């Protein structure tokens, strides 16, 4: 990753080597290897069914896997899931946040742009964008070192997506957080990640985001050959500068 000897290496927060997951006899992930240093953002991309959420579950020890996953000892992990199972429970935002941390909600609520009046509302009465921001507030309330985002803006109106990612970026700067992000959004991947891991490529593609062209990224995310408008198909395969 950082080959320049003049740059002080940040500590490695996550080291993955030869990770493999089989579900029902079918190989979902195979030979996934990468290292992630502190304060870096890794975008995990690929079409539906390529194993993105499975990778998160393997990293958290939720599913059996082969290979090795090593988190640094001081890594406190915050997860922002794609959705919640039981939003019909009569649980308020304050009660939900207190399941992780009994006090000190104000800072995390402010960080995601939610007022304290939201604390009295039930989770099930929140809009998609508000619920995602509450989930982010939950994830950061105890100041984690690592955040895992599973498509954090699915179910959120298009206009409300950008502010969420801008907040994530400022949180990363404020709290020095290392982030793993699953997203189908090319703009998000290009603008908010340092590295991209493509799960549908063999061998797996792990690269600095700036070294991956828009066209290549579209092919990776959507799993199909993409021809940019106005170019002949053979020009689309020219390596990006």
């Amino acid at each position, binding site marked *: 990753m950082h080959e320049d000897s003049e740059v002080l290496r940040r500590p490695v927060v996550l080291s993955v080597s030869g990770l493999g997951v089989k579900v029902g006899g079918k190989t979902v992930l195979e030979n996934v290897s990468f290292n992630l240093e502190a304060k870096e953002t890794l975008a995990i991309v690929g079409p539906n069914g390529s194993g993105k959420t499975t990778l998160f579950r393997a990293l958290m020890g939720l599913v059996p896997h082969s290979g090795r996953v090593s988190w640094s000892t001081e890594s406190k992990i915050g997860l922002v899931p794609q959705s919640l199972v*039981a939003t019909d429970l*009569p649980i*308020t935002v304050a009660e939900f946040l207190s399941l992780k941390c009994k006090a000190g909600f104000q800072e995390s609520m402010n960080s995601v742009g939610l007022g304290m009046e939201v604390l009295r509302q039930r989770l099930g009465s929140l809009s998609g964008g508000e619920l995602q921001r509450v989930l982010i507030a*939950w994830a950061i309330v105890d100041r984690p070192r690592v955040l895992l985002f599973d498509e954090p803006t699915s179910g959120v109106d298009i206009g409300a997506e950008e502010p969420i990612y801008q907040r994530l970026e400022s949180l990363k700067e404020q709290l020095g957080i290392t982030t793993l992000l699953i997203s189908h959004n090319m703009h998000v991947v290009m603008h908010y990640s340092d590295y991209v891991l493509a799960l549908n490529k063999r061998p797996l593609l792990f690269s600095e985001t700036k070294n991956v062209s828009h066209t290549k990224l579209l092919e990776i995310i959507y799993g199909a050959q993409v021809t940019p408008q106005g170019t002949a198909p053979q020009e689309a395969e020219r390596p990006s500068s």
Partner: protein
Amino acid sequence: MISKRMALVGDALSHVALPGLALGLLFGFYPFIGAFAFLAASALVTWRLQKSTELPVDAIVGVIFVLALAVGILITPQVDLLEALFGDVSTVTAVDAAVAVVISVLVVAVLRAIYDKLALAMISRELAVSNRVDVDRINLVYLLLVSVVVALGIKEVGTILVGAVVIVPAAAARNVATSLSRFSLLSGIFGVVSAVVGITIAGAFSLSAEYAGPIVVLTGAVLFALGLALKFSRRDRVTAQ
């Protein structure tokens, strides 16, 4: 149990106590011990099967319930069968009441100790595991607590109705609770109210002791209906505004 969508599971689980009750009657030991032993064993089997097969809990309990009911009916002495199925509140002694109070206090204490982890596991298994909650162990403890509660109530209302005595007050509370803490509190209050009012009505009309259980359940159902009416009136008020 309402929050975990286990209402019918709780009802079916109560029938599993019948063989244990029957053994207590046949061999002259405290029936609660036999009932609890069978309930705890079925809770363990259910937990283990759910973990290893990923079958839904209601399917597993459904099989165990019909098996236990059939065995229980076969081995319960005929003269005691009606009391085992429908209970007899007049046979409850001061010792029974004292034991019930002590065990109830212990159940509440254990529940308070695991409450946050249990609530988080209900909302999202992924969030719970990322927060280092041993979800499988919490579910097992929870099932064992359900077994204790069900075993406690069998003498008073029998195996047929004890599930309803547990579930109906909670369902009634669900209609009117605006937070998880109020849901827990109201469930307890409605449970006490339906038991006291139900037994009082049975006594006031000099009804046979085995009718106390059904009247307790009916009282709970009235509370449920009142709660539902209140819920609809709140919704109409909000719509009108």
